[in-house]
């Protein structure tokens, strides 16, 4: 029987296999940030251990960093202490760090691909569940906890069991205004937040093959929201074109050898998936979430669901509590939901293409008077690229705030937060209670829906703008 892409990558990294024990898996790249690493470094020190492969490790500052006034010390002393701890730890153990102000700094899942450190066929881990992002390159990439961060720092390996295999096939052509974000929100709505549990998801089909690398990263990023630790896409010419010339991509004869290997990284025709999901791209419309988990999403033309109509008791209770938290009434058309804040950014949608899509909709127009819009590039390099293209002027002229790079309003760890009761349309990945700030209410959307929503002040698809006369 043939192997899936994920099985090929996994099997080629098994250091040791013994019956009755987990496999020992080699890790090609370990990405580190300030939040999930300090206790791991303390563990190393307490045991007198060193970092086995600093040259396969890369650190950045992202979760805690302010997006305004980034060259001053962080005002919050607790955040500052955590960032300082990372600086001390990386200096002590010889790990490269891209600190605030550095041109390589940014969200950990934006900088890996941007530097060319993320390549097909690799195993990549980070103490962050959105590590699945790197699967867009055909890498096996997954989030780990702090104990595992310590394990990888010490040994460059992890004990692992092979995952089950799931295929999500998206065939056909996406309608105009429908993006990768809508695809993944539709997938999660269909299989649920636990649907991918125990599985690696391979996204395939003609609609996936037609996507840019940025769009593929958006899809793989949210695999964890469907319960799958990893999601990946077979590398192809789009992948190779993205990588060529990047700082850490191979060059010359090495490039040729790498491409020859990468071209073998495809699921065999006779490989068998444990579960298969099919989605017709042409049937998709922009998706938005109405609840407090990413599986609670619907096409934007739908209305807030009535919990009484939900048969499954757990889901009904979850819907009831979600509506109470979100301050929504069953039956309200999603398009009538008014938002206070629009957030464009995060490791899901903070890349250059996301900014371009939003800027194209905002150009020459103005954000709704009662709405604020934050635009936060995923990295310093994305920020510089956007400024070179004049996108910053488009956002500023439209009345949006143009910020420095970081995780920003995706999670309440830095100054960019919602206040209690404040409602956002957000291009991030999680609409959990309080995720964007205590009491904040989050609707997950694509960059295009975010921009259209900013213009009208209520959840809006790009196609609605003309009708609304905006």
């Amino acid at each position, binding site marked *: 029987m043939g192997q899936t892409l994920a099985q090929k990558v996994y099997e080629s990294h098994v250091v040791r296999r013994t019956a009755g024990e987990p496999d*020992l898996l080699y890790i090609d790249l370990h990405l580190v940030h300030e*939040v*999930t690493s300090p206790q791991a470094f303390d563990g190393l020190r307490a045991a007198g251990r060193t970092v086995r492969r600093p040259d396969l490790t890369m650190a950045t500052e992202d979760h805690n960093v302010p997006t305004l006034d980034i060259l001053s010390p962080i005002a919050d002393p607790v955040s500052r202490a955590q960032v300082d701890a990372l600086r001390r730890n990386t200096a002590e153990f010889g790990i490269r760090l891209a600190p605030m102000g550095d041109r390589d700094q940014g969200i950990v899942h934006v900088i890996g691909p941007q530097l*060319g450190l993320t390549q097909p066929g690799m195993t990549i881990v980070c103490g962050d569940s959105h590590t699945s992002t790197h699967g867009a390159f055909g890498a096996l990439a997954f989030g780990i*906890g702090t104990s*595992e961060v310590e394990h990888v720092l010490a040994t460059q390996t992890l*004990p692992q069991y092979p995952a089950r295999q799931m295929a999500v096939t998206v065939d056909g052509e996406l309608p105009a205004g429908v993006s990768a974000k809508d695809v993944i929100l539709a997938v999660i709505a269909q299989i649920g937040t636990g649907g991918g549990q125990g599985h690696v998801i391979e996204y395939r089909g003609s609609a996936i093959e037609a996507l840019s690398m940025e769009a593929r990263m958006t899809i793989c990023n949210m695999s964890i929201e469907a319960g799958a630790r990893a999601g990946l896409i077979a590398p192809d010419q789009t992948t190779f074109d993205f990588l060529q010339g990047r700082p850490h991509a191979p060059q010359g004869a090495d490039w040729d050898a790498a491409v020859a290997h990468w071209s073998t990284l495809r699921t065999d025709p006779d490989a068998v998936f444990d579960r298969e999901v099919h989605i017709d791209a042409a049937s998709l419309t922009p998706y938005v979430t109405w609840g407090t988990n990413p*599986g609670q999403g619907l096409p934007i033309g739908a209305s807030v669901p009535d919990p009484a109509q939900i048969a499954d008791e757990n889901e009904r209770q979850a819907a009831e509590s979600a509506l109470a938290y979100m301050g929504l009434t069953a039956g309200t058309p999603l398009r009538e939901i008014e938002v206070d804040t629009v957030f464009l950014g995060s490791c899901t949608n903070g890349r250059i293409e996301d900014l371009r899509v939003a800027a194209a909709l905002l150009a020459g127009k103005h954000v709704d008077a009662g709405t604020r819009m934050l635009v936060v590039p995923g990295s310093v390099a994305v920020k510089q690229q956007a400024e070179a293209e004049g996108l910053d002027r488009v956002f500023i002229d439209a009345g949006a705030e143009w910020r420095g790079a970081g995780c920003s309003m995706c999670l309440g760890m830095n100054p960019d937060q919602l206040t209690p009761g404040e409602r956002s349309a957000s291009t991030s990945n*999680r609409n959990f209670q309080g995720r964007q700030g205590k009491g904040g209410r989050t609707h997950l959307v694509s960059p295009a829906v975010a921009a259209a929503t900013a213009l009208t002040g209520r959840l809006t698809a790009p196609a609605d703008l003309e009708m609304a006369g905006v």
Partner: protein
Amino acid sequence: MDAFTTHTGTAAPLRRSNVDTDQIIPAEYLKRITRTGFEDGLFVAWRTNEPDFVLNQPQYAGASILVAGPDFGTGSSREHANWALLDGGFRVVISPRFADIFRNNSTKAGLLTVVLPEADVEALWAAVEADPALPVTVDLQAEQVTHGDVTVPFQIDPYTRWRLLEGLDDVGLTERHLEDITAFEAQRPAWLPRSLPAQPAHPA
């Protein structure tokens, strides 16, 4: 990590599904650089905003076993969630289904996760709601949960069970195989990327 063999305590019925790690402990508590002392962040939003929340009820104040609905621990990979549960006095979480990363982190932190079918979880909820003082025993050696005259089996992979029973540290176990790791490294392709030294972009 403390060894886990068997544990008897009272149980708190958390009748919620999809309890994500942001609910277990919000991000603002993750700024700390210690490994303990996270009990103040445990379910803090629900404890603050919902007077009837199960852990606000005095009869469940001393519970050391949390019984939750399906998809417990979804979302962020923060091991702080596992630490907060331990710091809050919990040794065991029972649910019909756990998120992968949460479950994996639990095995490293010494928090036992037990998967039981929904019907068994429902029965356990009913039992501890009827009698909050009911002793519940989770026996890892025997792989069973007992409450009153009910005993239900659970499954756990034998290796993880052994590690938990012995309280063994994974890094120490892996270090027994350093020769294998070195041998593996010797045959990795030379073109694989290294983060050091930093490289400039090169012409395509």
